[in-house]
């Protein structure tokens, strides 16, 4: 189900916790599975549960509780824009509208070519850099004025 590289990373996470607390590695293991496969299928969630010796339903509960797990396929790039108040005051909402117009899609939609999924995010702990957005849960982009957004979109191919 997962590559040996991913399993090695999961093993490193398991080692952080007491031997009888393997379940503690579930958040990291799901994140690693999603990174490899682009989203979390039921098969992937069940695999992670089995690997950690926990009930599949318990892993599923975790996967559905935290916002950054995708339980449905998303575009090659998932762009999350922070629109919370501190960012809004410096253009977070405007940045979201700008992206919608440029991409011709709304929040929680994917461009027809499957390239970009747009999401509205909550505070990313980077409000001083507003407007901010995160690509694929990993790459934080700061001070995203129209020019910077154009640059980012040109890069996401």
């Amino acid at each position: 189900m997962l590559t040996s590289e991913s399993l090695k990373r999961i093993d490193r996470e398991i080692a952080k916790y007491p031997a009888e607390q393997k379940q503690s590695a579930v958040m990291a293991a799901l994140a690693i599975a999603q990174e490899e496969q682009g989203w979390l299928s039921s098969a992937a969630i069940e695999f992670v549960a089995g690997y950690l010796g926990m009930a599949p339903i318990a892993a599923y509960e975790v996967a559905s509780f935290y916002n950054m797990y995708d339980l449905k396929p998303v575009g090659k790039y998932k762009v999350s824009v922070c629109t919370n108040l501190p960012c809004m005051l410096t253009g977070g909402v405007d940045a979201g509208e700008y992206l919608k117009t440029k991409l011709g899609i709304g929040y929680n939609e994917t461009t027809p070519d499957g390239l970009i999924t747009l999401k509205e995010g909550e505070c990313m702990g980077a409000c001083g850099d507003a407007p901010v957005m995160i690509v694929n849960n990993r790459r934080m982009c700061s001070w995203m004025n129209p020019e910077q957004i154009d640059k980012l979109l040109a890069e996401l191919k």
Partner: protein
Amino acid sequence: MAILGAINPMLSVGLDGDNAWRLADYVKRGGYVALRRILEQKLPQEYVINEVKKSVLRGRGGAGFPTGLKWSFMPRSFPGDKYVVCNSDEGEPGTFKDRDILRYNPHSVIEGMAIAAFAMGAVRGYNYIHGEVWEIYERFEEAIDEARAAGFLGADILGSGFNFDLFGHHGYGAYICGEETALLESIEGKKGQPRFKPPFPASFGLYGRPTTINNTETFASVPYIINLGGEHYLEAGKANNGGTKLFSVSGHVNRPGNYEIPLGTPFATLLEMAGGIRGGRKLKGCIPGGSSAPVVPAAAMMDCTMDYDSIAKAGSMLGSGAVIVMDETTCMVKALERLSFFYYEESCGQCTPCREGTSWLYKVVHRIEHGQGRPDDLDLLASVTGNIMGRTICALGDAASMPVQSFIKHYRDEFAYHIEQKKCLVPVDVQRAGSGFFTATV
């Protein structure tokens, strides 16, 4: 972003250069001296806890609880594993200081946690890091590896017989995991739902073991307290408000960012450091302690000093030190609508008053903002907040209610105008110009 300005700083001294976060740089600026002194001179646990008590360091995560007192609650001679846990799940809108501490000064957190572990007899620690700041999580893991390789973490630290190991744990998008017991559930590999208290974490914490949870900035301050001595640390701030603190300034200012200033510094000074209001406009109001803190109108805010007591006197909370500045281009109804949406989205749903109440608050503020408000909506909002407050497992219910109550209290006319005129008092194009998005020249 970095730390943009400071007055008599501690935490942000010497953080220039790309390698400031590395162990070698931290040691060069006096890092790990405090831990070494404690272990080499075999100072007693009580000594450490006493210094922290004398410093009047108050928790930097939001509640401002005295750290030394919290540490003294730990049953430190209780046999078996005990834990220290660092809360870097920074998700309170407006707060972005822990990110910078971990980015530029991660070893101060590691050293602070090791000292805390020593003082409370803990053998293991975790730092729970907000999932959205992935590169910070990776950097912290690297810093841990450096500290372990240098003998500051692991077994028999500096040959003293003291063992302590530390690990990073990342979140994955749930504000509620910043609440300390939800955070513990999350480390245990479960949904992040807060626990009933009591029992408190000091008796029943991570994996059911005694646990102390502190904020990133709280731990980071500890080495400075040990080096300076508790009394001198206290004097760096003001009575009952020890030390310096990082303030995250966001919103309508020219230079948003982090500023380290002594507690008790006038708000006016901080505002000036942040470059003042954009476009020379006027301050309308300020949320001085993160989105959960009540809003304070301009005039009262200009009279405040930045410390727990002064902000409390103005009817708000210093909270996490997130200063959200709003100028006259802000529509207060829209601002509140966005905050109410946040709490509605982030309620974990296990208490009915919070789950149903946050949904109502959002629905009603949303309809006022969209021109469908009803004459008795402001009374309705007051009654919904009354039904939430004090009736929930964790403080998120109160956190959702306080913005609603304070926005309506201070800007009631603006809400009434919205309901009657079915539009914003501040014209929409003025609001847009205020955000600066389409005119940015950054």
